[in-house]
């Protein structure tokens, strides 16, 4: 009886640990009305990618690590799409001082991401973002499965790994 209990207990520990190392749902994407980069209304529930994973980054034109993060991803973005079909939404939290310069900046930089404008931080607050850059990975069901604060050179490699895991977990 004791042995059986021990066996079940160790199985309990094992399954707990196992389920933690796998991708798990943190929360569902909230529904917030913001704008797309052209200034048209956009609800965050429509962030989607035909059942494939999505990367969401919070950034601003004045945020140094954010620009580095986007430049680094921009270099490998085409390869990522080929490999995983991932799609990235870059949510600018620039306020009305600089939000109108986001579209020409994104084009000038030649970035291919979907860009959204969150001028008054509504989406930022709903996602509990303190400071940019803050990156989320969403699975094909609209569930946030991973988040990361800050950007250090090379971090994008981890994003790709998580995206691949999210693809497998489906």
């Amino acid at each position, binding site marked *: 009886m004791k042995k059986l209990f021990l066996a079940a207990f160790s199985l309990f520990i094992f*399954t707990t640990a196992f389920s933690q190392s796998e991708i798990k749902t943190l929360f569902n994407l909230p529904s917030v009305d913001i704008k797309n980069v052209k200034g048209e209304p956009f609800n965050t529930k429509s962030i989607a990618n035909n059942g494939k994973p999505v990367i969401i980054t919070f950034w601003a034109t004045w945020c140094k690590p954010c620009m580095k993060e986007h430049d680094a991803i921009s270099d490998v973005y085409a390869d990522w799409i080929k490999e995983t079909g991932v799609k990235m939404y870059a949510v600018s939290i620039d306020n009305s001082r600089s939000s109108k310069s986001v579209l020409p900046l994104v084009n000038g930089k030649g970035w291919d991401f979907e860009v959204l404008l969150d001028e008054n931080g509504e989406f930022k607050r709903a996602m509990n973002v303190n400071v940019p850059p803050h990156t989320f990975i969403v699975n094909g069901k609209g569930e946030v499965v991973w988040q990361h604060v800050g950007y250090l050179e090379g*971090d994008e490699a981890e994003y790709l790994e998580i995206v691949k895991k999210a693809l497998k977990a489906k």
Partner: protein
Amino acid sequence: MKRNIFVKLLLILALLPVFGFSQDILSGGKVTGNIQVDAQYYSEDSKLGISDSSLNYKKFGMNGFANFIYSNGDFTAGMRLEGFMNPMLGFDPRYEGFGVPYWFAKYKVGTLEMTAGHFYEQFGSGLVLRSWEEWTLGYDNNIYGFNAHFSPIKGVMLKGLVGTQRYFWEPYENSNRGIVRGLDGDFFLNDMFEGLAESKTKIDLGGSFVSRYEKVPNKTFSRDSAYIVINELGDTSEWNQRTTYQYNLPYNVGSWAARANIANGGFNFYVEYAQKGNDPNATNNYIYKKGSAIYSTLSYSTKGLGLFLATKWIDNMSYKSKLTESGNPPMLDINYLPAITKEHPYSLATVYPYATKQNGEFGLQWQIAYNLAKNSTLGGKYGTNITINYSLARSIRKDQVSAGIPVDSTGTDGYKTKFFSIGDLPYYEDFNIMLEKKFNTKVKAKLAYYNQTYNKNVIEDDIFDDINIVHAKIAVLDLTYKFDAKNSLRTELQGLFTKEDDGDWAALMLEYNVSPTWFFSVQDEFNYGNPVSDKQIHYYNLSFGYNEGSNRFSVRYGRQREGLLCVGGVCRYVPASTGLTFTLTSSF
């Protein structure tokens, strides 16, 4: 048999986590949140003139908040706890305390969304209404009341709100500040009319109306024959010729704005015009003049090229929910007047920052962003980015209302001005260029040059003259070297050159990163050109940071340079300090 059930139960228990983790624990409801704690321990530093008594014996400062959001289907509720014990240096001592300055409950039924409690809102670009918060500035003008969003048909969004604004920890009671009411509508014509759905030209029109009710104080003022206001002590030579007047203060101050956004292909044009009724207040020196503002942007972009032009003109547009409120930190702002200059990411380029002058300002900005394509002659293997930016802020023309009455005299109409008039006094000018290039898989570089003109008296002290203007040239080289996929070294070399103010500066920063977990950096900003030799100080800093998913912990030891910290055109004065800073942030 009994034993068998027991085994099954154990097995279910053992496997429960596998199923359990994929489901929400609170049957459909979910709690998320974030926490940030900043703590500083201050040391005495004779070089900066900091002693225990100059710190008021507040050796330790701590600012922290925790946000919690509960969501379940169409229902959301949330709150933010804040604690300032004591407020860190540079934050107003009136923030001292612990409490819940922000909580809300929100429900969505169809296309109607109702919020009760505290909320943030923005109408258009914010010229007549914007409530927002910025933790690093200690800025929060949330509205406490009701807010509704309603979309009766596709393409139309209506908003209505009523409430009172946050003032440190002071609750709203006995009409101690005004009540804010507002209505706003957005009309996306291409969504509203089927005939326009396919049109290449996209048009969005909008309008707002905002009003403030305030139980006005019974206020008088005295002035002499030269229109100089005399305080109670009667400190001007003409005091015996003074006359005392009763202010005629309005209980209700209204404002409205109209806006349009027109897009076609790569072009985008935005304009918003706002007006405000007569609103004598402590910020505008109690003049009866009406206010107005216009903000407009034009951009053209196509892949690889972005052009941007913005102009604005502001005339007497300070709008607060209490007429006697002024100064720093800015509190009870109903509207937001964006600064038109560019915000820079490098430290020496922000020594001389700009913030909007609400009582009158003309501003202009243009920017060109160009991407030299990959594998082109000039672009090289990885492409090259060039950004050129220019911005300017000047006074507006202010003419006397009649001969003998100086401009901005209390209790008069203040001044006369023509729409979009440009004055003679420069406030700020900034020309800057940035080049970004990736040389190979290991080396990336950014090179930037800034040429700034800063009217110190106007920007820092609201003294409108041109006798203290700083001309500064700044150069920055930012190099990243990647050793392998995880290890990299970043260096920043900066120089600021000026003959005025504190003279020349040099800065060096080395940052070693191990992705995705930790970083270590050393930094020194050296004011080697300060005309006062005792002030040729090294502002050194050592920092260490650790990231683990959405948790981040960092420690910094060193000196903080005195200056203005600006976010979104609102600035906070940060005094010089020396000490140890801990920051912990976490989201869940």
